[in-house]
């Protein structure tokens, strides 16, 4: 079986899963994020070159590419996480539902509540499980304990963690396993009630079983959320995403329906990368 065929197989399996769950087909896309001519710089060094891309609502868009190709930088530009890096600047536009997120009157705190993020390394705060999930609503001003516990329960359920931790919500989050910590971080991101969730290699530090759980979770979440995921695992991109974008050396080489990109890539570089000829 050639590599192309094996990708085809993966995509096919996924479609069967989707139709089994009666998830609507990918054709009825609404644009959630619209990026136009984005150039991004860390000081003198340019990390992204003239990237234009749309991200579809309630779908999973995966970014693939070798290390240092700009996929993480692009992801972090979508909720202005790069703002906190000294010397980072950009030009171009990033529209979230038609609104420029880099406009001077945009409240970056409000933006990040709508565009949540999950990181490669799980980052639980050194607090209890409950306080971790309740952190977002609390800083947003929610003081009512009953409301907070409802949010915590709902978020943990959505992140498929509730059954494992419901009896020990007051335990330290640091006592959880790596996979549980990562799902806790997803629950924490869900608790602020975002529309878009950005994931930066959320499963790359996990064992295969935990990775499978995260992937199942992403599958569930896309019914309600727009998900953008950076991964350097191409099989993962093929398994979970509707759209895949390939980055190379700061350029967006190609973005297409996942099945098309993996089976009939238009660009030579994409084909070389997914068949393992470099990267």
């Amino acid at each position, binding site marked *: 079986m050639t590599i192309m065929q094996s990708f085809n197989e993966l995509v096919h399996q996924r479609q069967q899963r989707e139709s089994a769950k009666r998830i609507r087909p990918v054709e009825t896309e609404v644009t959630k994020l619209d990026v136009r001519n984005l150039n991004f710089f860390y000081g003198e060094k340019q990390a992204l070159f003239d990237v234009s891309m749309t991200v579809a609502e309630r779908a999973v868009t995966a970014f693939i590419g070798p290390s240092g190709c700009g996929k993480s930088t692009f992801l972090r530009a979508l909720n202005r996480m790069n703002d906190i890096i000294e010397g980072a600047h950009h030009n171009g536009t990033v529209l979230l539902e038609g609104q420029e997120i880099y406009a001077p009157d945009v409240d970056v705190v409000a933006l*990040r509540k709508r565009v949540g*993020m999950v990181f490669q390394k799980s980052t639980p*705060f*050194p607090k209890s499980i409950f306080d971790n999930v309740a952190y977002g609503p609390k800083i947003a001003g929610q003081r009512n304990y009953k409301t907070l516990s409802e949010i915590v329960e709902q978020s943990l359920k959505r992140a498929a963690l509730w059954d494992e931790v419901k009896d020990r919500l007051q335990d330290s989050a640091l006592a959880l396993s790596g996979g549980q910590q990562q799902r806790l971080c997803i629950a924490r*991101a869900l608790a602020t009630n975002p529309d878009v969730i950005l994931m930066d290699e959320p499963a790359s530090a996990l064992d295969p079983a935990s990775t499978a759980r995260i992937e199942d979770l992403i599958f569930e979440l896309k019914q309600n959320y727009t998900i953008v995921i950076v991964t350097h695992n191409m099989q993962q991109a093929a398994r979970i995403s509707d759209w895949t974008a390939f980055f190379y050396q700061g350029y967006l080489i190609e973005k297409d329906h996942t099945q098309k990109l993996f089976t009939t890539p238009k660009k030579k570089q994409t084909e070389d990368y997914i068949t393992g000829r470099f990267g």
Partner: protein
Amino acid sequence: MSLANVASPLTPPKVGLRLQKQFSWVRAREAGVRAVLVSCASLSLITTLAIVYMFFTEAVYAVAPGSTAFFQDVSLWDFLTDTEWSPQFADKHFGILPLLCGTFVIAGIGSLIGLPIGLAAAIYLSEYAKPRFRRAMKPVLEVLAGIPSVVYGYFALVFVTPYVLRPIFQSLLHIDVDIFNAMSAGVVLGVMIIPTVCSLSEDALRAVPRGLREAGYALGSTKYDVSLKVVVPAALSGIVASFLLAISRAIGETMAVSIAAGQMPRLSLNPFRSMETMTAYIVNISLGDTPAGTIEYKSLYAVGFTLFLITLGMNVLAQRVMKRFREVYE
């Protein structure tokens, strides 16, 4: 030759190759370097042990025949419960409480001032300040730490008391302020511990992984939220350790307090009166004409020993807290 060896793995070993130890200059140098390093490392340990031994023989149990140690003359019970300290008067009393009281009132005032300001400065430097400003501020703090404590004492006596405390408390609030008083000593002590608190707390804050801050920001936190609700709790044990070290330094501080607070052992909580700390008493007796072997002389060791135990306890506690802090993020 070596090439030949590599090329042919079957070359037989040289006959008569000696593996036994032999004298050589290289080996002698290794042994010499080792000896020098070991003795340097032992020196501080030996000094500490010698100090403890001296405390023990002068304060607890005399070794030399015919002499007695402090606690062989004065009962431990009197030492801990008597409310008067007057070793130099005809009616001698040896109650450590007034000295402990002076020490803790002054160290307490110093902590109330120095710890919050030091922590706030650390949070500013670690979370808010631009890197360039931080680089400029660090040496300034070290200068503050390098000012001799006698200067602080003098500053308390000729500036803090007459130009700060007296106008506020005596003229405005009609509370008598002695020229030597615990408050002025506490104030300068607070300033003195700011660099310690600031520098160590800042290290603790900056050791918090960047990922934790990013996670905070990604959840819609403001800088204030991230600093106070994410970074400070994560660095808490490091901050507590810096507090303990600073308090331990405040308790052990000598020159500033003996100049500013005076030499009047007093069991009182009024910070505007003159008080004597354990360290100030030691200075007082050491500089006076106290003949060796007298009870006043021996009381020096009893006080010193008490002080040693208190600061040792604080430092051990700080070490433990620090250790826990390291375990969390490694």
